[in-house]
């Protein structure tokens, strides 16, 4: 019964069109493709905004509040980083990979894994570790999207910062996240985490 039905569907799909012209099918398919791709991309970009991230109270009341006090939110030049600038890769393939991982976050939202301050604080170390691991693995790519070492004038930094960057960053011995953890959000319990 089901087999017959499947066979008839396959036969329908596999046989040439009886009513529609070739031009209709190709142009129609092309236009439908544009509409689909445009819609997909628009949705993708819509989920890649700070407004979208902070539409959940988990983000708005915890991490976004913390960001507001940091230099990545308010500073002398008025350039600022939004959530996806640091947390979503900018290249398309990596971005899609991260977006697929983010389905886990939808799961977390649905089941309320961090829907209270207490739950969030309890899980904070684990969440932070994911981000540290990601940035360590891609050599702090999201930092470097803006903070390009080739354009970094060490003489304009404080002597302390300049010499440390010269020593560890230029040599490739360390990457940004090794020292700059917790710059945009508060740190979790750091016991046992090597810093610097």
């Amino acid at each position: 019964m089901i087999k017959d039905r499947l066979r008839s569907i396959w036969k329908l799909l596999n046989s040439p069109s009886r009513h529609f012209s070739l031009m209709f099918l190709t142009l129609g398919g092309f236009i439908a493709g544009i509409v689909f791709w445009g819609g997909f991309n628009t949705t993708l970009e819509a989920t890649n905004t700070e407004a979208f991230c902070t539409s959940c109270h988990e983000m708005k009341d915890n991490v976004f509040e913390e960001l507001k006090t940091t230099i990545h939110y308010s500073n002398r030049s008025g350039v600022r980083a939004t959530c996806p600038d640091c947390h979503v890769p900018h290249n398309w393939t990596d971005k899609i990979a991260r977006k697929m991982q983010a389905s886990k976050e939808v799961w977390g939202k649905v089941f309320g894994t961090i829907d209270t301050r207490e739950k969030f604080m309890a899980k904070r170390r684990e969440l932070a570790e994911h981000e540290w691991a990601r940035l360590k693995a891609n050599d702090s790519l999201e930092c470097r999207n803006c903070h390009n070492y080739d354009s970094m004038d060490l003489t304009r930094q404080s002597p302390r910062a300049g010499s440390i960057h010269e020593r560890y960053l230029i040599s490739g011995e360390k990457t940004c996240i090794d020292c700059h953890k917790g710059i945009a959000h508060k740190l979790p319990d750091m016991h046992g985490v090597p810093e610097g």
Partner: protein
Amino acid sequence: MKTGMVVLAVVALGVGIFVGRGFDRADEQVLQPPTTITVATPKVTELSNSIDAMRRGAALNIEPESLPLARVENADIKRGRAYPMQPPTIPHAIDSYQVDQNSNRCMLCHGQANAQNFQAPPVSVTHYMDRDGQVLAEISARRYFCVQCHVVQTDAPTLVDNSFLGADEILAPTAAPAE
């Protein structure tokens, strides 16, 4: 009965509008810009003998113009100590350094284990001792909050003259009188 209620409602509405407008007017009055009398910022030395350094001599009914915000000195040049056992001042900015139960940013560089990697002065071994003199592996809880004793310095001009002399200056032999 029904008409009575309607009349009552209309009267209540009228009163509400009247009172509301009254409040509006009250708001307008409040919103009038306060008459600000700005006093030119006096030179610091001018008032340096005044005990009223924070208000810089401005009368109580006058809002003195605030001085520009001071900047934290960030030159990484160690300062001397004014007296023995003075906690050294911090010669750099410590903006948004997290020092709390979870993390101590100062110890990233100033901890005994890390100091050589960052060429930072390590905290003294006394800071690793508990009150019984036992040396601990990590900074002692009673020394944990660095800025209780160690503070940054800003470039703000001093508001009053300061005749403080460091111990070395007091103990130094007085210069030979000029001939």
